[in-house]
């Protein structure tokens, strides 16, 4: 049954139903509504969890790391500068193989200060070993939380995950969402069984000192776990589809790609606007499609190459910039399509909350078809 609610509230509701035992978070715009809702649920005894109030994001994720190592299902949420402050702990969580799920209400990074949306924050943590899933709408944001816990806690995976949904654009938007009931969530997501945990009777240290003889092998093992997460995600996404009727077994999802000459590649809420723009371009006789990346980590390189094997031009919409190196997604899509013969162009777009309209998407397609790309789209040259 569809209910009409704010995206942040929908996320808080599904997190509650995933039964986290420990939550530690520090409020920051635009993530605030999620953790306010969860704090209230804990205070009202609707959610049987420890809610640890902390003085910073560094402490929030550190508390989560300890709680996870002690064997609890753990949740946190943050964005932007908050995630930046967690940088060190993020690497430790992944290296210690703790299955923490954290919502990222995507926001740009300062300076200059901006509270608005792009995906710079989570993408800047791409090398940290966290799985990264991106939601197109609030329904997908809700569903990905359940899938994330299932994949992370798989004993063949044991990794943390970001569930990314665009700050404000999704977090503050009211729209219909189907929220699975508690019993349905319990049926999909059983109670957490730790692989190993802190226990005073049988003491254990996590993330021990690794000498040069071992460090490389630990990194290799963690890297392998990320790649194994592809299969785990596909399985969890398929099971989700069987139970709830919404299938998430695809790491990448094509929209009107059959017979397309030009393909857009994007992640997150911009995909919705792109789909509407593609419908209009198709009506005007242009053969355009979209490839949506759902799992940025692990990066679905071969899946992208396969999905785009028939197109001649590819336009990647990057809501981030690796300063001095181009858009992060575009760079990796180019690597994935190396040798395919397709012309791949990258467009830095929608930074710091700049609105994207259907006509902007159409303009990007025009630029790509004219062979103009690897650029910032829509620069206001009059202020430069």
């Amino acid at each position, binding site marked *: 049954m569809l209910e009409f609610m704010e995206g942040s509230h929908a996320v808080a509701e599904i997190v509650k139903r995933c039964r986290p035992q420990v939550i530690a978070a520090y409020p920051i715009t635009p993530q605030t509504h999620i953790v306010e809702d969860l704090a209230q649920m804990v205070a009202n005894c609707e959610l049987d969890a420890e809610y640890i109030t902390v003085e910073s994001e560094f402490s929030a994720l550190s508390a989560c790391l300890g709680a996870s190592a002690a064997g609890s299902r753990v949740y946190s949420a943050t964005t932007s500068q908050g995630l930046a402050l967690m940088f060190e702990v993020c690497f430790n969580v992944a290296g210690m193989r703790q299955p923490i799920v954290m919502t990222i209400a995507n926001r740009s990074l300062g300076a200059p200060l901006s*509270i608005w949306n792009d995906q710079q924050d989570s993408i800047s943590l791409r090398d940290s070993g966290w799985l990264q899933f991106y939601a197109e709408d609030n329904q997908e944001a809700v569903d990905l939380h359940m899938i994330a816990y299932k994949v992370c806690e798989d004993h063949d995976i044991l990794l943390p995950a970001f569930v990314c949904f665009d700050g404000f*654009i999704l977090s*503050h938007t*009211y729209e219909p969402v189907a929220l699975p009931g508690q019993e349905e969530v319990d049926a999909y997501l059983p109670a957490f069984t730790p692989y190993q945990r802190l226990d005073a009777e049988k003491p254990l240290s996590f993330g021990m000192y690794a000498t040069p003889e071992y460090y490389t092998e630990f990194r290799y093992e963690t890297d392998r776990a990320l790649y194994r997460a592809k299969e785990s995600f596909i399985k969890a996404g398929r099971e989700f589809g069987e139970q709830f009727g919404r299938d998430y077994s695809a790491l990448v999802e094509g929209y009107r790609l059959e017979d397309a000459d030009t393909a857009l590649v994007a992640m997150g809420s911009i995909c*919705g*606007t792109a789909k509407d723009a593609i419908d209009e371009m198709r009506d005007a006789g242009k053969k355009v499609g979209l490839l949506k990346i759902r799992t940025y980590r692990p990066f679905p390189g071969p899946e992208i190459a396969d999905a785009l094997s028939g197109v001649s031009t590819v336009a990647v919409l990057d809501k981030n910039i690796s300063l001095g190196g181009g858009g992060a997604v575009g760079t990796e899509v180019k690597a994935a399509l190396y040798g395919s013969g397709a012309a791949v162009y990258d467009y830095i777009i929608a930074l710091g*909350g700049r609105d994207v309209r259907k006509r902007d998407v159409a303009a990007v397609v025009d630029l790509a078809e004219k062979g103009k790309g690897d650029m910032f789209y829509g620069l206001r040259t009059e202020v430069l």
Partner: protein
Amino acid sequence: MTAAELIAFAAFEGGAYAQAFPAFGVERRGAPVQAFVRFSDAKIRLRSQVYEPDYIIVQDPTLIGDVDVFMGMKAGGIAIVNTEKPDFEASVPEGVKVYAIDATTIALEELGVPITNTTLMGAFAAATGEIQLEPLEHALRNRFSGSMADKNVRAAERAYNLIGGAV
């Protein structure tokens, strides 16, 4: 934003797919703010702001003149303006029908506070016919409880009947 949320919720209750969101960032009382609503029979995927509205609601008449509140409107569009002076001066695009309503006075009389969201929602429902009275009332009772719900329903109904008589 509350008005946008309530209108979208009422449209959703009436069987449509709906979306409501603020122009993000400056959500403090007194700052000029915008919020947007879309409703449709199909799922709404578009995420951009609304640039060519079919309908607008102007909650604060002092904005008219400072901001082109009618920007992007086309013939057949409907504007609901909260004002004590129905003869306000503004360049309204051709073919746009303007309904003026003193929602502040109605809100003060019915609610005791100059918060006009629910009153304007009643006016919007009557002027556009997009929302029926029943889902509107349901939306208000979902949002408010007890006597606050009754008061807000009364304010919305008063505006609904007032504008309904003028349609």
